[in-house]
């Protein structure tokens, strides 16, 4: 219940955070802390230092930027869920944020923290993968790079982030005119998804479908997308949902069941997206 001892440093800027991370090999960034602190309390994680980035002023806002909406990495799930701009311009993101954890978690947890944790059972990563979102990563010496969401998640809890890099911004496309759906199948409202499906459809571009908790990272249901692009009806296309997946078997559900669930949920999500 009590974390192992660690040093604490409060970064006033992204550059200072990067410097602290560079100087301390097993330092960790503390944003909302709602992925990290539970692990530390159970002593499954024991960083020597926490670099608190929550006081960095310029990472917590949501703004329009051309054909995209830029979400600061420190924007809390609660603010993502309640953002008027996102409701209008990219509602799947605000809706998915409203399903993360519970209200208390959403009051503290941040979109950047959730994305950088790279938990394949998290909702936001698969939504970002479906959206083809871009992630802005800042590094030492003022370096900055932009990564596509589908390339960012490289494995279980493995984001494309160097130890001394900071995820600064999440840039999502405006989806006005596109139908969308995020279906989260879970046992209790506060739980992670057993399986989740993010779907976008319509407005000229083909359907985009991504899966939560069906592999070691969020993945696109390429078979489904291909079938839909080829003119298959939704039910037929949805049968291809398990293609390329490698879902876990755990105390909650077997891999077999997750595969079947993915078919049903993909069908329902695409239908909902097409109807919306």
């Amino acid at each position, binding site marked *: *219940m*009590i974390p192992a001892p660690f040093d604490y440093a409060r970064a006033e800027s992204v550059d200072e955070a990067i410097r602290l991370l560079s100087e301390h090999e097993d330092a960790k960034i503390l944003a909302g802390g709602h992925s990290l602190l539970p692990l530390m309390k*159970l002593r499954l994680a024991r960083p020597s230092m926490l670099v608190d980035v929550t006081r960095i002023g310029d990472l917590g806002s949501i703004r329009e930027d051309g054909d995209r909406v830029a979400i600061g990495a420190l924007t809390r799930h609660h603010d993502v869920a309640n953002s008027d701009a996102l409701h209008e311009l990219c509602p799947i993101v605000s809706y998915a944020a409203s399903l993360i954890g519970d209200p208390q978690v959403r009051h503290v947890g941040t979109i950047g923290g959730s994305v950088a944790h790279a938990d394949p059972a998290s909702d936001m990563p698969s939504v970002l993968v479906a959206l083809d979102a871009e992630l802005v990563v800042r590094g030492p010496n003022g370096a900055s790079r932009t990564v596509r969401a589908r390339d960012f998640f490289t494995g279980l809890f493995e984001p494309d982030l160097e130890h001394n890099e900071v995820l600064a911004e999440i840039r999502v496309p405006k989806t006005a005119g596109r139908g969308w759906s995020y279906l989260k*199948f879970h046992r209790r409202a506060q739980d992670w998804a057993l399986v989740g499906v993010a779907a976008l459809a319509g407005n000229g571009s083909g359907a985009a479908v991504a899966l939560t908790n069906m592999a070691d990272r969020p993945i696109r249901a390429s078979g489904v997308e291909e079938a839909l692009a080829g003119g298959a009806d939704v039910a037929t296309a949805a049968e291809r949902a398990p293609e390329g997946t490698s879902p876990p078997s755990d105390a909650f559900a077997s891999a077999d069941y997750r595969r079947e*669930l993915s078919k049903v*949920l993909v069908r329902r999500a695409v239908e909902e997206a097409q109807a919306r």
Partner: protein
Amino acid sequence: MAVTEKYVGQPVLRKEDPELLTGQARYTDNLVAPGMVWMSVVRSPYAHARIKRIDTSSAGAMPGVLGVYTAADLEGEWGGPLPFVWPITEDIKVPVHWPLTKDKARFQGDGVAVIVAETRGQAADAAEAVEVEWEPLDAVLELEEAAHDDVVIHEDLGTNVVVHWSHGGGGDQSIFDTADVVVKERYLGPRVIPNAIEPRACLVQPVPAMGEFTLFSTTQIPHIARVTLGGTCNIAESKLRVVAPDVGGGFGSKLNVYAEEALALVLARRLQRPVKWVETRSENFLATIHGRGVIHDVEVAATSEGKILGFRVKELADMGAYYQLLTPGIPELGGWVYMGPYDVQAYWYEFTGIVTNATPTDAYRGAGRPEATYVLERAVDAVARKLGMDPAEVRRISLAPKFTEAKTSVMGLNIDSGNYPETFEKALALAGYDALRAEQRERRDRGDVRQLGIGLSSYIEMCGLAPSNILGALRYAAGGWDACTVQCLPDGKVVLKIGTSPHGQGHVTTWAQIAADTLGVSPDDIEVFHGDTSVAPLGMDTYGSRSVSVGATALHFALEKIKEKARVLAAHELEASEEDLEFEGGTFRVKGAPESARTITDLAASAWHAHDIPAGFEPNLEATAVWDPPNFTWPAGTHICVVEVDTETGDTDVLRYVAVDDCGTVINPMIVDGQVHGGVAQGIAEALYEEALYDEHGNLMTSSLTQYLVPAASEMPSFELDRTVTPSTTNPLGVKGIGEAGTIASPPAVVNAVLDAIGHLGVSSIDKPVTPERVWRAIQEAKGGAA
């Protein structure tokens, strides 16, 4: 001024609430003592492993650490092993259970060393630094595998099969050969983890020079803990005070005496400092008892018309690695209700207790009776399915008729009273049963993805533990009486010292209502003291839905004594004969001269100053009564659950839940309803969500509240409640008990509802908890699919 309002039967708001609502409660973890130090326990990561070596030196050298102790270090401290008080048979094999294990760990979480340090954090840090060299052994978790004894957990016992208990049967056993229909089924009842929201904690405050100890503990049983821990820790009972301050829920998990309480006592004695221990939730999952963990084989005999004739049940029960306080007694408790509310001719129950490499099991809300009810109600539905009958009709023709005087059951004990048909019909009416069936037909006809299921559960429970002579015959170590002291103070206020130990059940309000009516005061004028063996030394505590039927009946008799004593003084003061006095609403009046009156409040003052009392009258208006019930009480009822099952995903939604219970006379309907709500939710949780899962090595996979799914408000429906009132003949109040009814009735109602929803797809069996995957799999299997 005497109050004449009647409080019994009214929804009096709780006297307990103000401190709980404002953050002023006194839970054990809130208590601090000067010089207090912190204890933490080093636990085995293995389910079964021999201890080759323990090195405590680096832990001992850590900041703030006062000591690190292994079993060997504490050897001289004990008067005996941890208490086990229910050796249910003469030849039962009893695993020796020390507070720290010496030779090997027998379950994941078995304690091997204990730390004392200045702060909570330091104690946690040092526990990690104790080095244990383990030799892992094969673990056995499955009951039938454990019974083979390929791996023997307690070598000195020579076997894992530690106890066999048979009820001995009742009635005509030949019906299982001759009945029109005999259905045989096997049901699995997985382990469940109680999860009172307050984890366990204790604080021991010693007075070294006096050899005295006060143990503050999150316990349901301060009195039983006092006498048993005294024995374990070599402390005279008279030198040990046990206090259960505000306790944050129990559900049976705190009806126990735990290693940590014993360790804190002996370490406080050794270090001469107050010692505190607080369980983390992760520890709670390993080190606090689990419930259920059973396999039942049932045969149910019935006529071709669907009348149930008898049940024959054989059970395998998972004891876990050791016995806790009552372990093998739990299935036995259930062993007296395998006839249910049915008018059966034959009864058979026996069980075999088996030790496994898992956390010990013990009482979990309902303790044996939910297990029994689950088996009976599943089996009754199986009969209906076999005969193609409506399950309501099978129950309707099988329920025992109304009786208002105690009657001997085929099971052998007397049942106090019952009116099962009335509660049953009331439940059907409240649910709108026929309309539900019609909606179900519509959904089936249109092949709806979401199918409707209606599940019934009629139950009887054995509560009001217990007549001491029966407990003695059942080889339980203690009695089943309870006690109450009533003190009428000279300022008009009243103090009740009660022997039960509530932890959410509202005894303070309930007892105050009863006393207020007799004494003619307001419940606001009554203070109720409980849970402290120095304040209320006589008591047998709270479990088994016993508190009102046994404890409040003791209050009733203490009030009778007060009345009789006060009558003597009133007659003296009013210069009348005792026979000429009428007593009503706390006031004695002279018959025919009502202006000549004395209230209990008046008399309390004159009994206290004692300036003018009759010869031989003892000053003060105070009385104690101890009540040993002549029988158990037998609440009953019918619950109906309505679910919607998504036949594609297997997901189950509880749409409605109807409960009609009969707990005899109701003192506070608001509190009674609250008990039903909580019990039903816990049973729905058991039916749909909760299961302790171990891997083959004995690692608990559902080891936190993120994996073990205690449901929240978002997963629960509102409940629709009603009741019937059939007074108990066991006690003068007519009360029966309500604390466990919801948990007893609800699991089969839910599972029957799910089966009812998907029965037309060919599914006839499914196990708890009914997870979406299990439902989906059952449907696939019924379709002949690959699943």
